[in-house]
C-alpha cells in the first residue's frame, strides 16, 4: 500500500487499520479525500470525506449504505486474504467515477444491483461470520 500510495496517511493498531488518501478517479473528476477502515474479521468500510455526496432531485445515491459508507461488492467477492489496495481502493475509484456519471445521467453504469435484493446464494466468510452475527443484520456488505 505504501509503495502505491506513498503520501497516504495510515493509522495502524493491532485490530484496525485506518487509511486516508485523496482519490481522483479520472483526470476530469473532482478529488475525493476518502477514509478506509479495516477491522480484523470485517469488510473494509469506505467513507468519502468530501466534497459532500449529493443526490439527484427525488433520487437516492445508489450503492450507498444507510450509514453513508460505500457498497462496493457482494459478500462473497471479498475475503481477508485479499489486499485492500488491490480491491477496495480501485473499487472506490470506480464507485466515484460512476457516481459522477450517475449525477449527470441518472443511470449507474457500473453494474450491480440497486435497489439490492437479499443474496440467496452468498455464503458469509468464516472469519467474518461472527462479527456479522454480532451486528445482528444491522448492515450487509455491498
Amino acid at each position, binding site marked *: 500500500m505504501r*509503495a*502505491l*500510495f*506513498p*503520501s497516504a496517511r495510515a493509522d495502524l493498531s493491532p485490530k484496525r487499520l485506518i487509511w486516508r488518501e*485523496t*482519490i*481522483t*478517479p*479520472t*483526470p*476530469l*473528476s*473532482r478529488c475525493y479525500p476518502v477514509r478506509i477502515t479495516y477491522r480484523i474479521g470485517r469488510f473494509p468500510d469506505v467513507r468519502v470525506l468530501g466534497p459532500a*455526496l449529493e*443526490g439527484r432531485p427525488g433520487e*437516492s*445515491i*445508489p*450503492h*450507498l*449504505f*444507510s*450509514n*453513508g459508507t460505500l*457498497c*462496493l*461488492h*457482494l459478500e462473497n*467477492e*471479498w475475503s481477508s486474504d485479499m489486499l485492500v489496495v*488491490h*480491491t477496495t*481502493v*480501485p*473499487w*472506490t*475509484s*470506480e464507485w466515484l*467515477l*460512476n457516481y*459522477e*456519471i450517475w*449525477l*449527470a*445521467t441518472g*443511470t*449507474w*453504469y*457500473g*453494474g*450491480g*444491483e*440497486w*435497489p*439490492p435484493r437479499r*443474496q440467496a446464494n452468498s455464503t458469509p466468510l468464516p472469519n467474518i461470520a461472527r462479527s456479522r452475527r454480532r451486528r445482528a443484520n444491522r448492515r*450487509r*456488505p*455491498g
Partner: protein
Amino acid sequence: MQDNLLTTDRNQQLDDLLGTSIAEFDIPDAVYARAIARYDHLAHWLAGYWPDSRAGGEVYTQGSVRLGTMTRPINPRDEYDLDLVCRRDLLDTSTTKQGLKADVGLGLAEYVTTGPDGAPKRHEGNRCWTLEYPGEPFHMDVLPALPDIEAMPNGILLTDRDLREWQRSNPVDYATWFRGRMVAELTTLREASAVAKRMDVEDVPEWQVKTTLQRTVQALKRHRDLYFADAPKDRPPSIIVTTLAAMAYRGDGSLFEVLVDIVEDMPSFIEQCDGILWIPNPVQPRENFADRWRNHPDRAQRFFDWIERAQHDFAAIGEERGLDRIVTKLGESFGEDPARRAGERFGTGIKDARDRGLLGISGGSGMLGAVQSRPVPRHTFHGDAARPRGS
C-alpha cells in the same frame, strides 16, 4: 475511443467526451448511404438524359454534404438538406434565368416519372427545385447553374433569389480549399482506418472519418442552431461559420484546444472594406459571404453576440471539475441529449474495460486507466436497500 477513456491525460479524456457529443450530430450512416444512393441515381440518370437535349450537364454535391460537416437538425422533425448543383452547359447569353430554372425543372420532372427508388416528389422553390423523398429524413435541394466562363473549369453562375441577377459561385474549388486546410489529418485518419479495417487507404471513403476541423464546424453549427432557435432568420449562414473556422484553424491541437482557439480567432478574419464587413470567399475573393449584413446590420451584431457566447460556453467546459459538471456544460453548448449520451458511453466504456480485464489503477491518485500490472478485479456494486441515504 477506449484508448482515450483509459488515459490519465486530461485533454485526451476531454476530447473523448467532446468528440462523442459532437458525433451525435452526424447523419446516421444508413441514412447517409441511402441519400447518396438516391443522389447517385439522379446524377447518372440526368447525365444520360441531357445528351439527347441541346446541351450536356452535371449534377454534383455542394455545401456541408461535400465538406463532411452535415449536422443533425435540432428539431427531429426537420430534415437533412442535401444541396446539389445542377449545371447545364449553356451560355448565359443563350438562356434566361427563368429558362434555366424551367429546363432543370423539366429534367427533374422526367426523372420523377421514371419511378426511381424512394418515389421522390418534385417541389418548386424560389430559385431551386426540391426532391422530397416520402418517409426519409432528408430531401435534395437542386440549384440550377451555368458554367462561369470567366472561372473555368469549376466556376458556376447561379440565379439569385428573385431570378434577377447572375451570381458567381464555385463550390467545387471551395471544397478543395476546405479539404486543403485539414488534409494532413484527413490522410492520417484514413490510413489509421485502413489499418484497423485491413483495407487499402483508397478504399476508405472520406466521409467515414472526421477531422478535428470538421468536428469543430459541426460543434459551432450546433451551438449556433441552439442559440438562434427562436430567431432562425438571424442565424449566420453555415458558409460564414465554416469559412471563418477553416481560416482560423492552425492545423493541429486537441479537439478541445482547437474548438476554443478557433472560436476565439474567428472574428479576426472578418475584414472591413470602406466600412463594410467583408468575409471573402477564399477561392473567389471578390465575393463577400457577409454581403447580406449590409442590409441587416442587426444580424452582424447578433453574429458577434453569438461568437462571444460560444467563446464563454466552450471555455467553461474545460474549466469544470467533475464528469457531472463537464457533462452539464457540454449540454449547455450542444443540448442535453448528446451530452448525456457522451456520459453514458463513458460509463459503459469503463465498465466494459473492467469486465475485460483492461482496467487498472494509478498509484498516488487512485486514477483509473489502462492496466499496467494488475487489473481491477470484478465485483458487484450492492447495498442495503432498506434505508438508502441521499436525497
